[in-house]
């Protein structure tokens, strides 16, 4: 698989041996000291590591640097990382991403990538820009998302409507999660929610399966909605949707062949009210699904220790940024849905978020440069 000359082949074999040795060392570490604990890399260790990587840029062009920057080394490492990811993707419940061999592979990739960019930057020209965008972008990303991410922390915070909260529960801590005081306080002014109209369908009460079997059909429970399922025609005659109560639809079901009409209220029920179905035959009935959330929004005021107050609307896909913190809409009282009296936020602290965005932008432009590289005949 290696190039023509004997020397190249020898180098590649050496590289495979070195990588294998490192991976075996990783396996030994894994065996004796258990999975890799990311917290080890937290500040200041990651900054020291960054300093060491930066030293590569000051290395003189020569045998050492070109060995570190070797292209075959890159291919072998890329292949090894891909195989590790295959393991991750195929074996249920694996711990690859926190295993020592994987961490060491990641580290070798960082060194190789740093050496290549260092070498290229020493002979910089405009022609190198696509290369720089892709490789420096990736380097910045891999560093911030790897060693950098050890500085990241996440918390959940549950805030009641009308009150202010500043204590959070670290996420991922499980049962022994201890509530901690955070440098942010959130006042929940209002929580509101929009729902899609609930759906109506014909369900077999004995099996719970929806009709037609294998290709179930549901229709929206909106006023005057019409549909046909199995041997009935349906029409929604009226809709009631009051606070606290579940949505309800008055359904007329006409059996097409006989013209027999069955009618009655159908509701999915909620924490406050029982569900109700409309029987069609001994086994089949009309039932309503729970309305699915369309959007949910928290109106908040955020207070910081230096006395700043920031008001915002937080939604899924629209977090709020306060310094190095981002506040996400995470959940609500799903039993009560629209009537939820609290909102759950996830607070993420990440001092590496700016380098991460720089890496992303560089790589996005780098990806675009592949188009004209590929556009050539």
């Amino acid at each position, binding site marked *: 698989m290696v190039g023509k000359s004997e020397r190249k082949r020898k180098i590649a074999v050496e590289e495979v041996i070195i990588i294998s040795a490192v991976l075996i060392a990783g396996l030994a570490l894994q065996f004796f000291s258990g999975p890799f604990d990311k917290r080890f890399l937290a500040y200041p260790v990651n900054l020291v590591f960054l300093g060491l990587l930066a030293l590569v840029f000051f290395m003189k062009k020569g045998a050492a640097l070109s060995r570190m920057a070797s292209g075959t080394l890159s291919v072998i490492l890329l292949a090894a990382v891909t195989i590790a990811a295959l393991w991750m993707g195929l074996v249920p419940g694996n711990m690859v*991403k926190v295993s020592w061999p994987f961490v060491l592979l990641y580290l070798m990739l960082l060194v190789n990538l740093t050496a290549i960019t260092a070498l290229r930057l020493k002979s910089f020209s405009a022609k190198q820009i696509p290369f720089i965008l892709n490789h420096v972008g990736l380097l910045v990303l891999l560093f911030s998302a790897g060693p950098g991410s050890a500085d990241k922390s996440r918390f959940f915070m549950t805030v009641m409507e009308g009150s202010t909260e500043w204590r959070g529960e670290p996420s991922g801590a499980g049962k022994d999660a201890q509530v901690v005081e955070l440098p942010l306080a959130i006042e929940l002014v209002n929580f509101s929610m929009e729902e899609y109209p609930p759906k109506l369908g014909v369900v077999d009460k004995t099996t719970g399966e929806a009709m037609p079997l294998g290709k179930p059909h549901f229709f929206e429970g909106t006023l005057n909605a019409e549909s046909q399922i199995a041997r009935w025609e349906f029409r929604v005659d009226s809709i009631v949707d009051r606070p606290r109560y579940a949505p309800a639809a008055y359904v007329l079901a006409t059996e097409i062949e006989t013209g027999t009409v069955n009618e009655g209220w159908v509701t999915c029920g909620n924490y406050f009210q029982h569900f109700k179905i409309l029987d069609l035959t001994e086994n089949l009935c009309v039932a309503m699904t729970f309305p699915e959330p369309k959007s949910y929004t928290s109106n908040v005021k955020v207070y910081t220790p230096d006395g700043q107050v920031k008001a915002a609307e937080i939604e899924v896909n629209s977090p709020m940024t306060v310094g190095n913190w981002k506040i996400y809409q995470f959940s609500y009282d799903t039993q009560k849905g629209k009537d939820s009296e609290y909102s759950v936020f996830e607070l993420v602290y990440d001092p590496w978020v700016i380098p991460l965005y720089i890496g992303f932008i560089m790589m996005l432009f780098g990806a675009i440069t592949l188009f004209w590289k590929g556009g050539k005949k």
Partner: protein
Amino acid sequence: MSWNEFIYFAIGSLLFWISGTILIYTSKGARLGNILILSGIVLFGSFIVGLWIGKGHPPLRTMGETRLWYSFFISIVGFVTYLHWKYKWIMGYSVVVAGVFVFVNLLKPEIHTTNLMPALQSVWFVPHVTVYILSYALLGAATIASFIAIKELKKGEYGLMPLIDNLVYIGLGFLMMGMLMGALWAKEAWGDFWSWDPKEVWAFITAGAYLVYIHARILKFRLNLLLWLLPLAFVLLMITWIGVNYLPAAQGSIHVY
């Protein structure tokens, strides 16, 4: 417009594509052939637009909808590649592939209307998915070309390599864009750029395989081995796209649909 009308647009487009492709093989009909293929693309595209308007949100939610875009893009990729490189077979193969996905959609729709959940209501939704499907189409074309190149290699011919490399470069460009936009979206939605969700793991594997290919090409690895990496990478790609849902390691993925 809804999926009920799909069959008319699909059969119409396929007729345009098939007759157009037959015509480009004749010396006199090439021009008319091009027009017919283009008409097929426009007709197919108008169904997507109609479905988008009919649903009130972009049709990118279900597996059937992603197949719809795949048929659309592979026909465009095939057509543009044929116009640029004059390889007629690439148009022929693209029509076959587009046809396969059209028939899968007709026979096994998986198109039940689903409401767009809050996490999917984002400006990143449309570019993230379309760019990915477009890259799948390009890399699919590269895979087809690699099979022909493997055959030609035995006769000592290398003529297809520039085309293959171009398709892989552009395909990988779109693949990377899809991945990066997905990561930016994930940050907005869940607070993490990357969380090794099963679909992410497989997207990573796919990108890794193509990265190995382009780096090995730069280093001039032997083609008789390297060319086999493209079909292999495409298998990995298909697992990312369709297979992930069925993997035991992937239960509980946020990307299952």
